[in-house]
């Protein structure tokens, strides 16, 4: 009985945990639901610069907090989302975008993994071809000897 209570408590905590994490972040009040949507989208698109692979929405780093405030402030002033992204890119470069744009300077970033994959697949394929056993023609005598050797134990 007690175990069951514990179990359901754990389950409840597990289900609630994502909301508890979100509750940590500051709340940004907006005049319109459109601004709120833009805000949510923007903090998902912009990178936390001092984190390892997190966007602004995921991070509670101090710079990320202040960048979220900056995004909210500009939205309230009436800036369009692309203007805000452009503002950040002008200052922090393409790196600030969580999904960097596909262009000449980011080509390696996007195609690099594919190139690695193709090279690796080629190497593995060539190894596998080599390891394939060749069919050898055995005489009857040799086959018998092989059988006797195998049955020895």
């Amino acid at each position, binding site marked *: 009985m007690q175990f069951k209570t514990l179990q359901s408590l754990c389950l409840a905590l597990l289900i609630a945990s994502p909301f508890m994490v979100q509750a940590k972040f500051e709340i940004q009040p907006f005049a319109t639901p459109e601004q709120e949507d833009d805000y949510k989208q923007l903090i998902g698109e912009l990178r936390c610069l001092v984190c390892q692979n997190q966007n602004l929405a995921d991070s509670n780093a*101090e*710079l990320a907090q*202040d*960048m979220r*405030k*900056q995004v909210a402030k500009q939205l309230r002033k009436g800036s369009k989302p692309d203007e805000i992204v452009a503002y950040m890119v002008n*200052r*922090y*470069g393409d790196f600030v975008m969580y999904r960097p744009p596909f262009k000449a300077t980011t080509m390696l970033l996007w195609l690099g993994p594919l190139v690695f994959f193709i090279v690796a697949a080629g190497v593995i394929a060539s190894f596998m071809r080599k390891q394939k056993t060749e069919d050898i023609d055995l005489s009857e005598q040799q086959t018998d000897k092989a059988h006797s050797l195998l049955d020895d134990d």
Partner: protein
Amino acid sequence: VSRYFVLGGFLLLMGVFAVVLSKMGSGEYNPRDIPTEFIGKTAPEINVPDLYNPEEMVTTISMRGRVWLFNIWGTWCPECWREHEYLNQLAKSGVPIVGLNWRDERQEAQAMINRLGNPFISIGYDPDSQVAINWGVYGAPETFLINEQGQIVAKHAGGITPKVWQKKFKKYFEKSASESSSNQQNEVKS
């Protein structure tokens, strides 16, 4: 043939590794160094409360026509403490430096300056990253070099050391000194 192919690939990777490692060793390549988009662009205007006097604003309009450094620091940043003595030396040798205290308590920031000395012409106070974000700052210390036309010419993320100074900043001050002295000569002639 494929054996040579694999060996070639291995050597290529070794080569890349060695080059990156040697560059990191000489301080040229820092994986955390985000290349600034700002080089050659006009520096953003600064209009921010003074660290010592909240009613007074620190602006950099008066810096037009001079080559100067803009240094972003905080008491929470160990490298800022380390570079401070060298900033004092630079200031003493006549390099104009404007400071920006970033994400600090006023009292703590003032205490650090009182203890280590003040190399800055003036210090802006930026507790919520308004100026820092506007300048594309993502860590401290960072130092920008702004030329006579108000353009950002160079930037360094990390502490200023004699080596960094020699490599990144010194030449611009020499140029400006010789130019301004030749300007003075022209003025005398005319």
